[in-house]
């Protein structure tokens, strides 16, 4: 039973009728006020009026509800993108979203990509397993909504990026190519009284398109007690650089194996003791000259070989562009003698016995934006007045490691040239080799380690964003 209320001296019922009449352009003059009062007290009319008011209230409530639902659906809700395999966390706080009136909800689409909503910590969390532009359906009901009505739906876009590692393909290189070389090589070998652990791997950027490894290396023990290790990095822009680096490495070794070279190197055997006992200007100068003559001739021979190869194979010399570094080592009573040469951006470094010092044997040819390296194929290097400075000599009582590497190793592990002179960075590299890396791969640098090749090969597969070049690392210990 409807009970009329009095508001401002007029009841709701009267208010409603008055408005209704007004909307129909009917005025209630003074002499009809009595009639109006009777009208709004009539029971049947009161019932009709109550129904009208109830319907209006219902319509209002319904409108507000749907309006609110539309607000929520259209509200811009952005959650950050995720990546397959990387733990994901997105804050989803109803209070912050001003969704205090949500009574029931469900997320559809999270489970099948590996995520879930944790309402206690208000986070969407988990590790996504599927990439794509996902559309998560947030189903909700708000307070005041009749319980039997279905959930309202709001689409929340969630972008999951593919695992970057999965985007890299591994395509076979063309074995029928006359200058094909094996994509990956890892070797452990005695080297005179020392050991050599060396690996050269085709970079992901080459594997992705099925092209070749352009890095190369070579090594040998020599009859005169010397050993030699060579590393070369073929230029990406040179179409036959895989052959250039290979020729360069092998030509150096072949040169020093020649009887003439074997003989010439014997002069060091007198000079080294003299150098050790009195480092007078003369002995040092003699040694430098000897280094320059012996190694210089080797370098010149390499250049000639490359020229000849280019000529007989219808190539421009620059098609064989490659950097080149090498080191000769011999153990004397007085210590280890190191002779070196370098052209390009590959470093040669010796770490002393107690690992407190790093000796860089060469300077790197680098340009303003890292693109200005030089190659063994460039005749200009021989004419430059800096040519002599490319050779190095060092005599050390003892040492822990000699390392030669291409920029495929030094870019990810050292980043800038300055870091090579920092012994702390080398400690980091040694720790990295010792297992302190993303994949937890440890390489035990011990000649009695039966798994050393397998370990080193795995370590060489390390992931470093932006560093997908061929990589070569030679460690002598």
């Amino acid at each position, binding site marked *: 039973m409807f009970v009329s209320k009095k508001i401002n001296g007029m009841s709701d019922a009267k208010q409603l009728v008055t408005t209704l009449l007004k909307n129909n352009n009917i005025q209630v003059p003074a002499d009809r006020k009595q009639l109006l009062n009777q009208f709004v007290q009539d029971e049947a009319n009161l019932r009709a009026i109550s129904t009208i008011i109830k319907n209006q209230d219902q319509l209002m409530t319904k409108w507000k509800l749907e309006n609110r639902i539309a607000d929520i659906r259209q509200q811009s809700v*952005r959650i*950050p*993108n995720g*990546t397959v395999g990387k733990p994901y966390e997105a804050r989803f706080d109803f209070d912050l979203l001003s969704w205090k009136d949500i009574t029931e909800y469900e997320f559809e689409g999270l489970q099948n990509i590996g995520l879930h909503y944790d309402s206690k910590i208000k986070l969407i969390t988990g590790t996504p397993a599927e990439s794509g*532009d996902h559309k998560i359906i947030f189903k909700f009901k708000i307070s005041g909504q009749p319980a039997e009505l279905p959930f309202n739906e709001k689409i929340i876009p969630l*972008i999951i*990026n*593919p695992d*970057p590692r999965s*985007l*890299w393909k591994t395509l076979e290189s063309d074995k029928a190519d006359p200058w094909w070389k094996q994509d990956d090589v890892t070797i452990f070998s005695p080297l005179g009284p020392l050991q050599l652990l060396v690996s050269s791997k085709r970079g*992901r*950027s080459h594997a*992705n398109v099925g092209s070749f490894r352009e890095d190369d290396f070579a090594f040998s023990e020599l009859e005169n007690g010397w050993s030699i290790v060579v590393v070369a990095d073929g230029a*990406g*822009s040179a179409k036959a650089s895989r052959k250039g680096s290979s020729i360069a490495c092998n030509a150096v070794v072949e040169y020093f194996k020649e009887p003439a070279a074997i003989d010439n190197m014997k002069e060091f055997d007198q000079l080294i003791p003299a150098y050790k006992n009195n480092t007078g200007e003369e002995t040092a100068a003699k040694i430098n000259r000897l280094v320059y003559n012996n190694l210089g001739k080797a370098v010149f021979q390499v250049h000639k070989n490359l020229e000849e190869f280019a000529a007989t194979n219808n190539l421009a010399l620059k098609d064989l562009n490659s950097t080149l570094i090498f080191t000769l080592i011999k153990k004397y009573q007085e210590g280890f003698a190191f002779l070196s040469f370098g052209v390009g951006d590959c470093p040669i470094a010796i770490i002393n016995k107690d690992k407190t010092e790093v000796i860089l044997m060469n300077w790197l040819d680098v340009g*303003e*934006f*890292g*693109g200005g390296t030089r190659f063994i194929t460039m005749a200009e290097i021989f004419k430059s007045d800096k040519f002599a400075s490319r050779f190095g000599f060092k005599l050390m009582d003892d040492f822990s490691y000699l390392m030669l590497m291409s*920029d495929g190793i030094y870019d990810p592990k050292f*980043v*800038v*040239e*300055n870091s090579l002179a920092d012994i702390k960075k080398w400690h980091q590299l040694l720790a990295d080799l010792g297992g302190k890396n993303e994949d937890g791969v440890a390489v035990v640098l011990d000649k009695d380690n039966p798994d050393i090749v397998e370990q080193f090969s795995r370590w060489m597969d390390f992931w470093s*964003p*932006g560093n*997908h*070049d061929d990589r070569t690392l030679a460690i002598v210990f």
Partner: protein
Amino acid sequence: MRRLPVYLLLDTSGSMTGEPIEAVKNGVQVMISSLRQNPQAIETAYISIISFDSVAKQIVTLTDLASFQMVDIKASGTTCLGEALKLVSTCIDTEVVKTTPEQKGDWKPLVFIMTDGIPTDDWQSGLEEYKKRKVAFTVACAAGTGADANLLKQITENVVTLDTADSQSIAKFFTWVTASIGVTSTKVEDGGKEVTGIGELPPPPSELNIVV
């Protein structure tokens, strides 16, 4: 990790209302989705969107592809290309990292401009500012007959035109931009050197007319 910054300057003036602006939005979305499948681009490409109509706004700051989320764009107003050039200049100053002995900086940025009309502001002073910055290259696209390719030629050597600013043509432009960013990402990562010009980019589709 050296980033490859890419700036897209997009005309959102009133004349772009309807099909053109939808095509632009779609073009950007598709471009981002495609680049996300490119392993080199996903590591190195960083994208920023600058819209210009009556004002120029950097609506998306330089963001890596993995995090990138496109914002909504609406078309209305005039065409302040000059302001856009000034804005991208200051963005380059603040966002692009320079190389020092301690750290390797970013690669030189790529700048793509798309407009369907004549600039309504002092574009020459904008150009003067822009010229002071180093970019790898600038490409300007004159979409439809309302744009002035000769004017754009004064901004950059590399101008392409679309006969009409319709969905298909605009989509083709963005496909080409996608390929260009992809190729450049690979070149800088592999070659370790800056890309110097439009000649290093993939050839544009037939819908894009190169203005000589």
